[in-house]
């Protein structure tokens, strides 16, 4: 594993919920990343946002890591959940909250 994939792997495995995104949770720089931030914030989930715009190596590395060519990418307990479409679909169908709770993630916000 190269340095960047080791870094990504340690972030994915070392944090319960990680969002690789463009910009930061406080200032998303892409509408798709922003939608996932809104959903996670609405549910009241603690997560770590990682801004892939800070490094070209990281931006390419995350695409290779998951074999998924687009950003954002959400990981829960080390598992790739999906990008914006999938997270939004799960949220709208009411699956996201029970999915997180089953994984032992505390959901403090809307019920």
């Amino acid at each position, binding site marked *: 594993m190269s340095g960047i994939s080791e870094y990504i792997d340690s972030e994915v495995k070392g944090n319960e919920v990680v969002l690789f995104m463009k910009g930061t949770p406080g200032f998303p720089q*892409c*509408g*798709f990343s922003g939608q996932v931030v809104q959903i996670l914030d609405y549910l009241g989930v603690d997560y770590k946002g990682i801004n892939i715009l800070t490094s070209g190596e990281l931006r390419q590395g995350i695409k290779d890591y998951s*074999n*998924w*060519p*687009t950003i954002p990418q959400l990981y829960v307990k080390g598992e*790739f*959940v*999906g*990008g*914006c*479409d*999938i997270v939004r*679909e*799960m949220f709208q169908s009411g699956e996201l909250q029970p999915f997180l709770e089953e994984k032992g993630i505390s959901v403090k916000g809307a019920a």
Partner: protein
Amino acid sequence: MSIQERIEAKLEKAFSPERMAVINESHLHAGHQADFDGKGETHFRVRIVTAKFAGMGRVDRHRAVKELLTEEFKDGVHALAIEPAAPGEAVRW
């Protein structure tokens, strides 16, 4: 062939869809990045209903579409919204 035509041809061949719509949404993202003038082929939405998706999970459906379009991503596609469904599932189009 335009990128849109390439996407349509590849999806048609791989998935034999019951219904399909490939929509260029690049104009909605004009100015979001310096090189997005809104006239290009950077952002697409793929709506597709195919029997091939029956029994497949969400990630696998999206991955199947994205893997098919690896070359189009290399050639400038930046974002792909996907609305995948198997026959009989609810769609909103």
